[in-house]
C-alpha cells in the first residue's frame, strides 16, 4: 500500500482537522453535543445535502459546475408530494422523479457538451427553469402521508439498540478514518524529511499530524465514555446517504468512468489525446449529478414529509462549499468523495454549533459557509501557487 502525500492533499487534511476541531469544540462546550442521538440527527439532517454533494463532486472533478442542484431537489419534492396526493405509491413516484431528474441532468450535459455553452450559464438557466416548473406543479407546500413511510420507519428505526449500535459504528469509523489520514501524514513526513530538508508542506503536515492525532485520540476516548447518552437512530435518509457515499467512493476510485472524470478534469486536451471519451464523460457527469440531485430530493422529501417549491434555495452554494472544503479543486482533476463527506459534516457541525448556541441569527450560517468557501478556495490557490513555485525550482 503506497502512502503518499503531495501538497494537493493539504486541503482535505485541513478539512479533516477542522471537522475534528469543530466536533471537539461542540463536545466540550455543550452538553449532549457528542451523543448518539445528536450525531444521528446530524447525519439525518444533512443526508440530502451529502447525496447532492456527491453528484456535484463528479461534476466539479470534471472541471464543470452545476447550479441547478437546489431546483432539482425542490422539483423532485414537489413532484413526489403531488403524485402521492393523487394516489400514487411513493416508490412509483420516486422512480419517476429519479428518471426525470436524470433526464434533466442529461439535457443540460448535452447542451454544455454539444453546443459548447458555458456550464454555469446552462445550469443557471436550468436552475430558474426547473424551479419555475416546480411552481407549475404546486405553488405551495404540500404534505405527504402514506403508510409506506410508517412501514419504512418501523423497519429502519424500530429497534433502538440496533440503531444506536449503527451510530456508534459509523462514528467510530469516521474517527478511525481521521486517525488513518494522520498515520499517512506521519509516515510520509518521516520518509521525505529523511532525504532532504523539510519543505513548508512537510512542516505544516507534521503539525497537522500531531494535532490530528491528539484530537482523534481525545475524541475516541470521549466516544467510548459518553455514548450512553441518548438512543440515537440513523434515519432512512442517513442510511441512504451512507450507501450512496460508499458506491460513489468505489465509482470514483475504481471504475473506468471515475478515472475518466479525473482525467478530463485534469486536462481535457491531454485526456482527449489519451483516448478518453471526453464528450461522453462530460455528459455523463451532468446526468449523474441530475440523478444524485433527484435522489437527494427524495431524501429531502422523506426528511421533511412535504413538497415545497420554495425549498432548497441556495443549496447549490452549500453543496459547492462542501465539495471545495473537502479538497476538490474547482478547476477539477483533484479531489475525493471522502473529502466531500467531510465537507458536508463540517457544514452540519457549524449549523449544529449555531443551533446549540441559541442566540445567533440563522442567517449567520450562510455567511459562515460563504466565508469558509472563500477561505478554502484561497487555500487552494495558495497551495497551487506553492506547487508551481516548487516545480520551477
Amino acid at each position: 500500500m503506497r502512502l503518499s502525500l503531495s501538497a494537493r492533499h493539504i486541503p482535505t487534511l485541513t478539512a479533516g482537522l477542522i471537522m475534528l476541531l469543530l466536533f471537539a469544540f461542540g463536545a466540550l462546550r455543550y452538553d449532549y453535543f457528542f451523543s448518539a442521538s445528536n450525531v444521528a440527527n446530524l447525519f439525518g439532517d444533512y443526508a440530502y445535502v451529502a447525496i447532492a454533494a456527491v453528484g456535484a463532486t463528479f461534476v466539479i472533478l470534471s472541471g464543470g459546475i452545476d447550479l441547478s442542484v437546489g431546483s432539482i431537489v425542490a422539483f423532485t419534492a414537489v413532484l413526489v408530494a403531488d403524485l402521492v396526493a393523487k394516489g400514487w405509491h411513493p416508490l412509483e413516484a420516486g422512480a419517476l422523479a429519479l428518471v426525470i431528474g436524470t433526464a434533466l441532468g442529461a439535457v443540460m450535459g448535452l447542451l454544455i457538451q454539444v453546443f459548447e455553452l458555458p456550464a454555469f450559464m446552462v445550469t443557471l438557466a436550468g436552475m430558474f427553469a426547473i424551479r419555475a416548473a416546480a411552481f407549475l406543479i404546486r405553488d405551495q407546500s404540500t404534505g405527504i402521508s402514506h403508510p409506506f413511510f410508517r412501514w419504512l420507519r418501523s423497519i429502519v428505526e424500530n429497534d433502538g439498540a440496533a440503531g444506536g449500535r449503527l451510530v456508534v459504528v459509523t462514528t467510530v469509523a469516521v474517527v478511525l478514518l481521521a486517525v488513518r489520514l494522520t498515520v499517512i501524514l506521519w509516515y510520509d513526513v518521516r520518509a521525505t524529511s529523511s532525504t532532504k530538508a523539510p519543505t513548508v508542506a512537510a512542516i505544516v503536515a507534521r503539525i497537522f499530524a500531531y494535532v490530528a492525532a491528539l484530537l482523534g485520540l481525545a475524541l475516541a476516548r470521549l466516544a467510548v465514555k459518553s455514548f450512553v447518552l441518548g438512543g440515537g437512530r440513523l434515519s432512512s435518509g442517513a442510511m441512504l446517504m451512507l450507501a450512496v457515499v460508499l458506491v460513489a467512493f468505489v465509482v470514483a476510485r475504481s471504475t473506468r468512468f471515475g478515472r475518466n472524470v479525473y482525467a478530463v478534469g485534469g486536462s481535457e486536451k491531454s485526456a482527449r489525446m489519451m483516448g478518453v471519451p471526453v464528450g461522453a464523460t462530460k455528459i455523463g457527469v451532468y446526468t449523474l449529478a441530475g440523478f444524485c440531485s433527484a435522489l437527494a430530493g427524495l431524501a429531502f422529501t422523506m426528511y421533511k414529509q412535504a413538497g415545497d417549491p420554495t425549498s432548497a434555495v441556495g443549496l447549490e452554494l452549500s453543496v459547492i462549499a462542501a465539495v471545495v472544503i473537502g479538497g476538490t479543486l474547482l478547476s477539477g482533476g483533484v479531489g475525493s468523495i471522502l473529502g466531500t463527506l467531510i465537507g458536508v459534516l463540517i457544514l452540519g457541525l457549524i449549523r449544529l454549533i449555531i443551533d446549540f448556541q441559541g442566540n445567533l441569527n440563522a442567517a449567520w450560517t450562510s455567511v459562515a459557509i460563504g466565508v469558509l468557501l472563500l477561505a478554502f478556495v484561497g487555500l487552494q490557490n495558495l497551495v497551487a501557487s506553492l506547487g508551481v513555485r516548487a516545480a520551477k525550482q
Partner: protein
Amino acid sequence: MAIGSDSTAARSRAPLWPALGLLLLIVVNVLFDVLTTGGPGLFGQGAFLHIALRDGVPAGALIDVLNYGSTIVILALGMAPVIATRGVDLSVGSIMAVSGAVSATMVVGGTSSAAAIGAAIGVAALCGLWNGLLVSVVRLQPFVATLVLMVAGRGIAQMITQSQITTFHDPVLEYIGLGRPAWLPLPFPFILAILLFTATVLVTRKTALGLLLEAVGGNPEASRLAGVRSKTLICGTYVFSGMCAGIAGLIAAANIKAADPFHAGQNLELAAIFAVVVGGTPLTGGRFSLLGALAGGLLMQCLTTTMYARNIGADVAPLPQALVILAVCIIGAPAFRAMLRAGRAAP
C-alpha cells in the same frame, strides 16, 4: 447574430437582434389581443398597445415595459463591462436587496433621504468592491466569487431589516421609483436609465476606458504585457456593477414603498446577463455593446410583461424565459452555426 463576431460593424449591428425580438414580442401580443374572440382588439382597454391617461400620465403595458424594464437596463449597463472582461456578476439581485434594506432602515430611523440614498449606493459599491477584489486579487473564478455574495447578500439584507419587510414613507425615495416629471410624463426610472446609459456611453466610448476594457477581456495576457492595469479595471467593473445594482435596488424599494430582503431583485441576475448577451456582448468577453444591453433589457422586460399579460404567474414565468434564453444562446453558439453549415454542405 452578432454574438461571437469581432468587428466594429458587428458591434454597431448588435442592437438589431434584441430590437427585432422586441418587435416580434409586441406583434405576438397584438395578435393575441386581436385574434382572440372577446379580446380587447388593437387598442382597446386591456390590450397590449393600449395607453390610457391616468392622472394625466400615460399608463399601459408599453409604459410598464419602460418602467420596470429600466431596472433590468440599469443592471445590464453594469453587467456589460463585467462580462466584457470575461467575468459575470451573479450577486446583483442580492445587492439590490441590500441597497433597499439600507435606505429603508435609515429613512425609517430618521436619516435624511439624501444620506440614505448615498449610503445605499455606497454600500452597494462596497459589495461590488468585495466582488472585484475577490476576482482580481484573490483570482477566484468570477461566478464563484459572486455566487457567495448572491447567497450571503440576502442574509445580510435580512440582518439589516431584522428579517422584516420594512415599509417607509419618504417622498424623495418614493419619487425614485414612482415619480413622473411634469415636463416629460415618462416613469422616472426610465429617465434614470437613459441618463445612466448616456453617461456610461460617454465615459466608455469618448475616453480610452472602453477600449481598455475590451482589451482586457479580449486578451488578458497581451493587455497585461502592454501595460494595461487589468486588476484595477476589472475591480472597477465590479464596483460599477454594484453601484448600478444599488440604484436598481432603490427603484425596486420605491416601487413597493418597502424594502423586501427576501424577494427584491429575485431572478434579475439572469435577466441582466441575458440582456447583455443577447445585446451582442459574448460571454467569452471582448467587445461589448451598451446599446445592445439597453435593447436587451427592454426585451427581457417585454418577455416578462407578455407572461403577465397571458396570466402566467411570477413564479412560473422564469420557465419560458429560461427556455428562450437557452434557445438564443444555442442559436448564437459558434458550434451550432458550424453544425448548420455542415448540414447545408452535405448533399
